[in-house]
């Protein structure tokens, strides 16, 4: 399989100052093997991380925050990691909080060549401060910008040898959009299959979007694979 690399090789693709997208809704659908490798990839600092959450205190992405390697967090729900609030209040972390639908749509827009879009979500709230708000058909809409990243770390269920991906139940979440919106897309997968083994109708991420595949070594609950 041409695109198959190790998680350590994957980390060599990340540079200081990069913007990373990291899939998952909490830990579900998060690329746990890649996140673990990122914790150890100390060469990569000054990171901007686009992810729904930023891990938990000193767990997952939260570990990278405590190591002082995160410059900015863009997500929808930081409450699960009180460190984020603490670092933000101390001026050690920039944050950008977006409604979850806006976050996912902005990532999709980034991958789909959309220069911006209008959503009613957050109109009239603090989250639309400093954003363009306009009335469309009598209702207020907020202009939201697309999100892009240098590297996306995503999790899928199966990959074929070309890199076509399927997902498993609620692990899909942000992963398919992130696969479209980064210069380098690295997919951690549970199973590798031959090209042709996936039903063409059920491929969610066509291989054009996938640059590298890494075998998942950590499952939810902490069990190690293989």
């Amino acid at each position: 399989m041409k695109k198959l690399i190790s998680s350590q090789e994957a980390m060599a693709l990340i540079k200081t100052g990069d913007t990373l997208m990291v899939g998952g809704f909490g830990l579900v659908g998060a690329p746990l093997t890649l996140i673990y490798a990122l914790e150890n990839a100390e060469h990569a600092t000054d990171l901007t991380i686009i992810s729904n959450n930023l891990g938990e205190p000193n767990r997952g992405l939260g570990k990278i925050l405590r190591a002082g390697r995160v410059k900015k967090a863009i997500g929808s729900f930081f409450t699960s990691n009180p460190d984020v609030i603490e670092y933000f209040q101390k001026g050690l972390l920039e944050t950008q909080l977006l409604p979850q639908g806006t976050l996912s749509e902005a990532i999709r827009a980034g991958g789909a060549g959309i220069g911006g879009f209008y959503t009613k979500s957050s109109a009239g709230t603090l989250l639309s401060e400093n954003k363009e708000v306009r009335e469309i058909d009598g209702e207020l809409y907020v202009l939201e910008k697309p999100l892009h990243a240098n590297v996306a770390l995503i999790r899928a269920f199966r990959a074929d040898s070309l890199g076509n991906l399927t997902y498993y139940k609620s692990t899909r979440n942000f992963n398919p959009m992130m696969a479209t919106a980064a210069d380098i897309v690295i997919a951690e997968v549970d199973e590798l299959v031959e090209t042709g083994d996936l039903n063409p109708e059920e491929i969610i991420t066509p291989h054009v979007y996938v640059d590298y595949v890494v075998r998942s070594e950590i499952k939810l609950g902490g069990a190690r694979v293989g």
Partner: protein
Amino acid sequence: MLAKDSTSHKIAQRAAQEIKPGDFVNLGVGIPTLVADYFQNDANTVFLQTENGQLGVGPSPMPGTEDLYLVNASKLPVTEMIGASYFSSADSFGMIRGGHIGVAILGVLQVNRLGQIANWAVPGKAIMGVGGAMDLLVGAKKIIVTTTHMTKDGKPKIVDQCSYPLSGTRKVDLIITDYATFSVDEEGLILEELASEVTLEQVEKNTDAPFRQSATLKIRSLD
């Protein structure tokens, strides 16, 4: 998990009465999640959507049978109803913002006299997460709020003006607390129902916003 007779469960039980066959329903984090325990869905005619990407959410799994990769918006394990489907967050919020979800049941920190809600931030405190609340608020056809009438510190959650930042400008449609049920019209709150344990005076005393009384004010029945 709270005991079945707790305040939260009574609120959830009351909210479940609002769910009708054919409804597409999104349940927020907290008390709303409990609502799923209180309506019968043997005929699979109520369809729960969870914004992390599933339509056809089934009841909580039996202990020991949990699939850790199958969770609701509260990140709690759920199951899959027959006819369920999965989709990305972008598609899920397309469904929500696009007006395809009939009922959203949300928790709140505060509700104001107009029925607008605050449920995503507390200045100076470790709450900094909006999740899908703002999208649901603009997108769902009907919004039901479920909340305890009072905070843990004994302060009213229904207030004249929210001290916490608003989640949007839209008014909710129904507010269900352990004390009472309010509907909302253009002018504000209307008391529709009193819980059997409380008096009108108690509701008035513990509600910091003006409200009118419905001409058909009822005593709540949970049977």
